[in-house]
């Protein structure tokens, strides 16, 4: 059994040449930075004594030990209640400014994405199907999967009679469909989608999409341009 402090200090001592005393002070500093009350006492607590939100804060402190340039956060708020989630998201945005670091925020919650992300990459079955800045992805999505995903979520601010779900389910990755992996569930699929795997198509400075609908468009345009 390790205390919260032990687990954080382990990283500090491993990566920096400092004494145990200094490591402990640094850890207390970090815990204070992530908003843990009474860090000098909590450093000697065991994780099971902390609430979910506090544990997530301790995890964030652990990740910040070596002043990272990039922080990969894998579903950091998914297990938390909305009120705690709001606090953790604000904390992460603050720390990002303080540490001037990049953040890769992995989540399935589109609300959280809209809240925190500058740029968004949408993945489906191992492929990034669309990337752009957050505004474009949410307000002018191009890939049929992104569009369907946004239609399928219930929104708190709009009352709709019926949700518009994506048909079928995510295929088993061992039996990946041929061509575009999304074609069996896609409402706009073309006959070619079954065989041709789409490649990245640029739609703007920042906007790429993997879909035949746009590849054709581009090649048509190109053809027009040449002729």
């Amino acid at each position, binding site marked *: 059994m390790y205390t919260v402090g032990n687990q954080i200090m382990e990283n500090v001592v491993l990566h920096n040449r400092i004494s145990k005393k200094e490591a402990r002070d640094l850890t207390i500093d970090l815990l204070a930075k992530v908003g843990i009350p009474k860090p000098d006492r909590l450093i000697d607590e065991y994780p099971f004594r902390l*609430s*979910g*939100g*506090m544990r997530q804060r301790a995890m964030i402190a652990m990740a910040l030990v070596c002043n990272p340039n990039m922080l990969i956060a894998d579903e950091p708020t998914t297990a938390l*209640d*909305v*009120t*705690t*989630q*709001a*606090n953790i*998201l*604000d904390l992460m*945005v603050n720390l990002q400014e303080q540490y001037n670091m990049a953040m890769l925020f992995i989540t*399935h*919650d*589109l*609300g*959280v*994405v*809209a*809240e925190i*992300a500058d740029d968004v990459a949408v993945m489906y079955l191992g492929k990034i199907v669309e990337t752009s800045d*957050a*505004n474009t992805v*949410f*307000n002018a999505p191009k890939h049929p999967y992104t569009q*369907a*995903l*946004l239609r*399928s*979520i*219930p*929104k*708190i*601010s*709009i*009352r*709709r009679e*019926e*949700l*518009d*779900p*994506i048909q079928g*389910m*995510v295929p088993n990755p061992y039996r990946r469909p041929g061509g575009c992996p999304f074609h069996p569930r896609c409402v706009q699929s073309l006959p070619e989608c079954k065989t041709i795997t789409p490649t990245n198509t640029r739609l703007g400075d920042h906007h790429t999409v993997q879909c035949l609908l746009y590849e054709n468009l581009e090649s048509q345009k190109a053809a027009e341009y040449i002729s």
Partner: protein
Amino acid sequence: MTSQVTLSQAPLQMKADDTLLEVNNLKKYFPITQGIFSQVKGYTKAADDVSFFIRQGETVGLVGESGCGKTTVGRCIVRAYMPTAGEMLYRLADGSVVDLGKLQGKDIRPFRKDLRLIFQDPYSSLNPRMTVFENISEVLKVNKLATPAEMRERVEALLERVGLRSEYKQRYPHAFSGGERQRISIARALVTKPRLVVCDEAVSALDVSIRAQILNLLEELQADFNLTYLFISHDLSVIRHICNRIVVMYVGKVVEVANGLELYTNPCHPYTEALMSAVPIPNPQARKAGTRIHLEGEIPDPSNPPSGCYFHPRCRYAQDICSSEAPPLRNLGEDHFAACHFAEKLDLNGVRMVA
């Protein structure tokens, strides 16, 4: 048998005629024991004086943070738990009223088919050693509600209705995905032709794209079978979508009850306001950085709650009275109830609606 139960007691009355279930001052305390003799040294007040009602045919949402007692209330209603105190008045199809909280032993049996529960986790709620058919039909077999031929017919019809092929009934649960398993759980809940279904986080474990399919299915089934739902969830956007009325709980107590739109646009309890402001909106233009209400501190321990109003240590509008006197749940008119001393005086912000 049911008429015997009602006749042996003084006739029970509900406040309104269209109410299916009326929960009054429901309490469920779990003892905290210590030592080899299991001495009781305190109680976790999982549900503490909970009152609300459910009308026939509507969907009532029960929301709150984890540990606030939503699941305990749901389980008391289906009598998986024996409540410590309080009444749960249930109106039978013939119009007579029974207190579910007082029933003992075999008297509960006839109600097991009327009140059904859909569990959160489709992976652990189905018995992996039973086929789909056995999983769904077990309740009919145990309660002797149908002959084998009827059972087969009912299970097949239901499987088709929830969107699965009836041939699948001989397979085992491991052969199905999460969404399909949740469809099986729904079929299992509906096989007894229930009147009230308690959905305990029924879509929380599902992927976003599957969640919409199941929500739509639940709505269709409600219309087809004339069901009443108690929908327990921590996800406010799901609750907003599916529920007519919403009950908000905080540390074992009901803090606010109102119609869906009313609660979201015009909350009257500071906790509801904080909850609404914490929900992330899937639109980057509605980004709320800095404008969100931060709830300081932690959710109190239900075995050692604060004095007065349980929310006062985290409430930004708290005054002296809040720490000494517990506010009762008051009727503010038009089906809106709130448990706050200043419910009428506060001007709280809800969710801004987009047409």
